[in-house]
């Protein structure tokens, strides 16, 4: 509710920050756009880190019995690669898009809880740093809270890189538990992921309330852009799946630190319980990773096809159905774990059903393009690439759902191929489409199209070279998570191809970075509506002014902006309205010079302060047996407590004249009965 908060001297510890620019402006901001941008940059840096780890994996696998990495380093590299890509890249970059675009797309000035939003961001950042601080602090030889057994490691193999978490991104117990992963590395993993989850949980509540409560006048639920819908669905998925992993991670942390026995098989703990809890979260998680990208694609395709999204309602409901069904399929990751045949059959069937709503989406996207006037701009290329590549990943997914054939496939590179097709060919392509599409929104400039196309084609080629051979490799018997394979196994050739492909992807990423860096300064100015777009976020100047809209928009239909610009002739073809240019100029005008003063969420120190306490507690827990550890917990708790206190004392909003009647109540005003 600080959307309209006044800036006034705080009555508490700090004076409220005033600056909205410069370093402190960024540190204390509660502006969803700045937060979104920071999320984006941080996530991209983590993408480079995760990608670098992937390149290490690929170099190691480029030939049989390679010795580029030690086994410990390899295991650490794929664990951190998976963890980084999932939790530190795709999730936060999706959060970046949602943060930046959600309020703009629903015609709001900010999210419902701007300071909470800042809190999420800082917790995410500190959690990421905390997770990677393992490189500095972890001592692979040091026992965890509980004495463990470890094998004999050749001293030469005891490297810094090998000291990173090495239990896989799924942290299967008991391997990642106190006895078989002594040392502190997996504690960093468990707590780091825990904190990342906390950040996402806060975001999810924030986004849900924002979507329910802050839509522009007239924006009924079924007038929201698909991206907003997918954000809502993702927020719900997060809301209901994160608690499960949180508890599971608590259990691991307790096992490792305080000697509880949840997953200690020797004492009767059940390792299969971890799998249920992890995948109860983990499967909804994969839809958390894909749905924002699907939302982006649903925005991009219509614009460059010059047609409305085909079957809007179907696409929305399909998204919701995917999410709902996605809660009922988790055990398809456990077909080989010895669960009963009834359970296997049931989960196999439930998994297959997801192909139906997903197919609905695919076909509606094709329907959108059908008969359109397709402009192959870079965002469009990425979006089409998404559709084409995702189908491949989806189809291999269906072959896993066929339980007996999954018994052969599971834990092989065939699975690795599947999920990179959906994650890279899907999520990452979709997100890149979004980056190209909304770059002007953020900067007021266009990314270079020539470089963009080069970027797409290198990434597309590299991607297929890397991951297509993994299908063959998997079916030829190459097992996942192996640092070595023997020369006789016959895996050399395709692995080498995959490695080459990975470097081609890297080249594509470098082209993208160059394009971004250059276009930010020298890119062609975009004007207000560079793509002839359809949705509300383009009705305000680029880059978006601090207050988003000069005058809060009112919406009368789906694709409201489009209908302001175009009417339809008798044949149903769009005809530009005569007054379109004037509308645009007006919007530009009010966007630059708002007619009324506008109140913005006030900056605050407390989010970053509160977030800073959390990693302190984390380090404290890991070293809780020592004095320093106890001290850190104490300091951390004090920081969190005092920040919360200061936060709650900071005025939320200026007392103002209760509800003056300037509140417009037009026909478009959506009533809760209709919408909710």
């Amino acid at each position, binding site marked *: 509710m600080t959307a309209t908060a006044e800036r006034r001297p705080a009555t508490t510890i700090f004076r409220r920050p005033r600056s909205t620019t410069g370093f402190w402006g960024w540190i204390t901001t509660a502006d969803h756009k700045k937060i979104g941008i920071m999320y984006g940059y941080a996530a991209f840096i983590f993408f480079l880190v995760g990608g670098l780890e992937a390149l290490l994996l690929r170099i190691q696998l480029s030939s049989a019995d390679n010795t580029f990495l030690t086994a410990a380093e390899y295991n650490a590299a794929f664990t951190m690669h998976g963890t980084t890509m999932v939790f530190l890249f795709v999730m936060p970059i999706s959060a970046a898009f949602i943060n930046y675009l959600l309020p703009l797309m629903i015609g709001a000035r900010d999210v419902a809880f701007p300071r909470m939003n800042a809190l999420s961001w800082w917790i995410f950042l500190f959690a990421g740093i905390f997770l990677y601080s393992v490189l500095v602090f972890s001592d692979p030889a040091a026992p965890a809270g509980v004495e463990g057994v470890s094998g004999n490691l050749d001293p030469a193999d005891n490297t810094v890189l090998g000291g990173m978490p090495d239990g896989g991104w799924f942290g299967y117990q008991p391997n990642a538990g106190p006895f078989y992963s002594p040392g502190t590395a997996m504690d960093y993993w468990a707590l780091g992921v825990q904190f990342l989850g906390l950040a996402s949980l806060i975001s999810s509540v924030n986004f849900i309330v924002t979507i329910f409560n802050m839509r522009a006048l007239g924006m009924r639920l079924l007038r929201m852009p698909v991206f907003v819908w997918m954000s809502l669905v993702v927020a719900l998925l997060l809301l209901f799946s994160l608690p499960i992993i949180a508890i599971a991670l608590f259990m691991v942390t307790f096992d490792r630190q305080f000697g509880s026995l949840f997953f200690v098989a020797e004492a009767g703990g059940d390792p299969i319980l971890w799998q249920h809890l992890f995948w109860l979260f983990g499967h909804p998680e994969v839809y958390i990773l894909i749905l924002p990208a699907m939302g982006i694609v649903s925005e991009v395709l219509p614009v460059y096809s010059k047609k409305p999204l085909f079957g809007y309602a179907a696409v929305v409901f399909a998204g919701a159905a995917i999410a709902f069904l996605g809660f009922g399929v988790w055990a398809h990751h456990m077909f080989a774990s010895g669960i009963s045949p009834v359970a296997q059959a049931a989960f196999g069937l439930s998994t297959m059903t997801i192909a139906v709503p997903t197919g609905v989406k695919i076909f509606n996207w094709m329907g959108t393009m059908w008969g359109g006037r397709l402009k192959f701009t870079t965002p469009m290329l990425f979006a089409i690439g998404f559709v084409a590549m995702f189908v491949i990943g989806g189809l291999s997914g269906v072959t896993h759902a066929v339980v007996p054939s999954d018994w052969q496939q599971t834990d092989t590179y065939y699975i690795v191929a599947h999920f990179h097709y959906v994650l890279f060919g899907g999520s990452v392509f979709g997100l890149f489409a979004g980056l190209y599409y909304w770059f002007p929104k953020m900067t007021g400039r266009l990314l270079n199209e020539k470089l963009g196309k080069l970027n797409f084609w290198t990434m597309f080629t590299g991607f297929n070279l890397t991951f297509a051979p993994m299908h063959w490799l998997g079916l030829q018997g190459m097992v996942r998570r192996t640092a070595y394979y023997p020369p*006789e196994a016959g895996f050399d050739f395709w692995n080498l191809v995959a490695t080459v492909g990975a470097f081609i992807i890297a080249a594509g990423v470098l082209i993208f970075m160059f394009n971004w860096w250059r276009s930010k300064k020298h890119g062609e100015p975009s004007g207000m509506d560079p793509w002839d777009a359809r949705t509300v976020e383009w009705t305000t100047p680029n880059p978006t002014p601090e207050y988003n809209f000069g005058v809060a928009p009112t919406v009368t239909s789906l694709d409201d902006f489009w209908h302001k610009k175009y009417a339809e002739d008798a044949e149903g073809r769009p005809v530009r309205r005569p007054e379109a240019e004037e509308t645009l100029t007006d919007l530009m005008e009010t966007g630059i010079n708002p007619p009324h003063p506008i109140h913005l969420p006030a900056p605050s120190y407390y989010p970053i302060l509160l977030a800073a306490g959390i990693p302190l507690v984390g380090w404290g827990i890991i070293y809780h047996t020592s004095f320093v550890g106890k001290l850190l917990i104490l300091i951390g708790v004090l920081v969190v407590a005092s920040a919360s206190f200061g936060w709650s004392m900071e005025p939320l909003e200026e007392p103002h004249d209760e509800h003056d009647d300037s509140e417009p109540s037009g026909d478009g005003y959506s009533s809760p009965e209709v919408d909710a």
Partner: protein
Amino acid sequence: MIWRHLGRLIRPLIRWGSLVALTVFSLAACSLVEIEDAPLTTFEPAGPFAERIDAVFWQVFWIAVVIFVVVEGGILLIVLLFRDREGRKEPRQIHGNNKLEITWTIIPALILTVIAVPTIQGVFDLTECGDDAMPVEIIGHQWWFEYRYPDHGIESASVLAMPIDREVCAYMTSADVLHNYWVPHLMGKRYLVPGQETTLRLQADEPAEYWGHCAEFCGLSHSLMRARVISMTQADFDGWVAAQQQYAVPPAPDTPAETGLKVFQEQGCTQCHTVDYGPDYQGTNLVADEFFNGPNLTHFASRSVFAGAILPREGQSWSDGLREWLANPPKVKPGSFMPNLDLTHQEIEDLIAWLDTLK
């Protein structure tokens, strides 16, 4: 209208189409060549269970191929047909079509129903062991598989021997973390779960040696946890069993082998390894105590591979493999629970001489 466009686009279609077809074809061709000599391939089922899975896979695979061709072909077609061109009219603003919507919901649902049938049948047919299956116990260790034959009183490691045309029911568990037993020629995978028992059906048609691999990430040397299965005729198997049931033969006096046996005792190898010379044996008993965590070596030399089926390497002799192993096990297999005992060159040679007596 579409046909008019089609005419104009037929040439690029052919061009693109052939390009794609060529690529796909060459990829497939290359991979088939490769698959021929991949010892872990899933494409050469050698027993009824693997064959059943293979059949299900191909059924689904070809359905997927058809969907693939239709969908990707559709995308390609759309891209070629509807690219923006000079003089093209503005597109008609179509918002949807309920009939289409229903069609493309129902057709996939029907296809999936078709796929569901072999899936369910497969699950129920393949999960539970037959009544007259031969039981074998498989115990996973970091990083090797231990086998026990309860009916025959035999213990072995890394290499599983089994008769052909007879179902073997593996009762599996783990001594430490999760493992996953996989012999692609014979069957899919099943986890080995500490504190629990899982079962896996195995059966081979022909006498042969098959590769296996631990498929669940199980720590540092998961990549070096491999396995072999040797299938043989029932007669051969009976002979093998009879041989394995023998006690080891003590080495002749004053041979390097005897020195090797001494080294074995003095270096504390017996702490982990059992060599069963039988109740009549005069020397110190070589039965590892409770803390047992190494392979039983009684018939070590009768195996085709050792140390989790990673040694001897391709082209390496048995003795050279042993030399490499005994010199520094954690170097060969990072994290190995067999420590580097700093054996001298001579000790290693003697040990090898002795180990070779353990037929």
